[in-house]
């Protein structure tokens, strides 16, 4: 690590943040899918789904937030891919700077862009009747979990961003991630699902994360679920980071 690591990373992050602020359409297209789903589920399907005493918008918001992040990180991969293709990535790598700062700048930009998208989606949810009596500690816990989840998915996005052969390839990895919440407790209680599907749903990361956030919003005790959720986030983060760094080392000498 060179003494300029932080300074260089700040400069490079400022650069890629301009890519976000100068093309706000990337934020809009990120939030369109989750907002449309929210409208569909709350006003079309929601009436037919029995979620007990909670209102449906409260019930499904955690899952929608995860979908927001999953759709947001496809732009992370896209921005990195464009840098690779245009040659500016190599230009930075050939300069006397902290080389890894180029990658960290994209990761930090992804965190900021997703934070913006999440804030917009929560704002729309509030307009649609979402209410929570959760206090500051609960919101901090929710932010922490979403931060970890976004960081983990961002590092997943770095892998295709560095190694994809086409723009389509760089973005396509996000679709399975957007789909995953549907086979979880995000929109319908898992007890209504047939055996094998239910077994999958109850043992994949989204369910534990969604359940934890849902309980925090509803001011209920989170129990052991929070540890499962954190273990998934950290596990995915570590695995994605290892693979991303391997892809990065293949790209630079």
């Amino acid at each position, binding site marked *: 690590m060179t003494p300029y690591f932080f300074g260089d990373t700040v400069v490079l992050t400022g650069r890629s943040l301009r890519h976000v602020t100068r093309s706000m359409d990337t934020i809009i297209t990120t939030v369109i899918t989750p907002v449309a789903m929210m409208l569909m589920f709350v006003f079309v399907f929601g009436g037919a789904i029995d979620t007990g005493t909670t209102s449906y918008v409260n019930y499904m918001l955690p899952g929608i937030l995860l979908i927001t992040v999953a759709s947001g990180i496809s732009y992370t991969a896209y921005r990195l891919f464009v840098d690779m293709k245009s040659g500016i990535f190599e230009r930075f790598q*050939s*300069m*006397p700077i902290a080389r890894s700062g180029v990658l960290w700048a994209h990761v930090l930009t992804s965190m900021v862009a997703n934070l913006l998208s999440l804030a917009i989606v929560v704002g729309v949810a509030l307009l649609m009747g979402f209410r929570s009596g959760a206090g500051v500690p609960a919101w901090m816990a929710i932010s922490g979990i979403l931060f970890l989840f976004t960081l983990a998915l961002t590092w997943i996005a770095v892998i295709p961003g560095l190694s994809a052969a086409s723009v389509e390839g760089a973005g396509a990895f996000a679709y399975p991630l957007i789909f995953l919440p549907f086979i979880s407790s995000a929109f319908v209680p898992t007890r209504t699902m047939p055996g094998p599907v239910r077994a999958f749903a109850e043992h994949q990361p989204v369910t534990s994360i969604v359940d934890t956030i849902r309980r925090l919003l509803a001011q209920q005790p989170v129990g052991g679920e929070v540890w499962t959720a954190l273990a998934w986030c950290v596990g995915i983060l570590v695995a994605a980071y290892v693979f991303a760094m391997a892809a990065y080392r293949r790209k630079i000498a």
Partner: protein
Amino acid sequence: MTARSTAVPAIRVQGLEKSYGTLKVLRGVDFDVAPGTVFALLGSNGSGKTTSVRILATLLKPDAGTAVVNGFDVATQPARVRESFSLTGQFSAVDDILSGRENLVLIARLLHLDDPGSIADDLLDRFSLTDAGGRKVSTYSGGMRRRLDIAMSLVGNPPVIFLDEPTTGLDPEGRIEVWQTVKELAGHGATVLLTTQYLDEAEQLADRIAILHQGRIIANGSLSELRQLLPPATVEYVEKQPTLEEIFLAVIGGDDETATITNT
């Protein structure tokens, strides 16, 4: 920078080998570049020009051989090597979303230089980009992008400059603009390593020319030395080319500035 002894080459490449799988791209490349000179690596596509430059630029590790830039070995002192050169790659490595000026400021800030703004303004002026400086680079023409690309490489006045096929894909006017820039660089004492597949480009710009063919240097010398090796027919062909170019530029009405460049 100009005070350096001419006895020590600015770039020294010895026995460089590189393979991609079973494909041998470099099969033992040797050459020296004297400080303050323009050296052209001439070769067709796939001859190993870009691979050589990428190794010198610490973007790729060789399988065998050594490369020394400005006295620093690329294998053992890559950080010092990166302080010594700038790279202009085959494709204009500019940020499309930023303005031309912002691109230059970005590079100056990454090099931790004082007053990045005035460095950017000076370079914009030097490359006739002052008017376009505030515009997004995505609106630039091919020649303007290339000029900005080269301007970005000159931030901080690196002693060694690598230009990998700087005129590929440019129209004749853009090519002349780049040629003029390279001549200026050499005039300021920088060492320039240029790769090209165009004979006339090497002829126009280089003090020494090395011909890279199938991963080996098969000829290395000044233009007059190489002329003795070339069959006369090729020399005739080279002499015809500028005539067509002059006609083209005259017909489209190039401005006076570019016209004088052609004649020099």
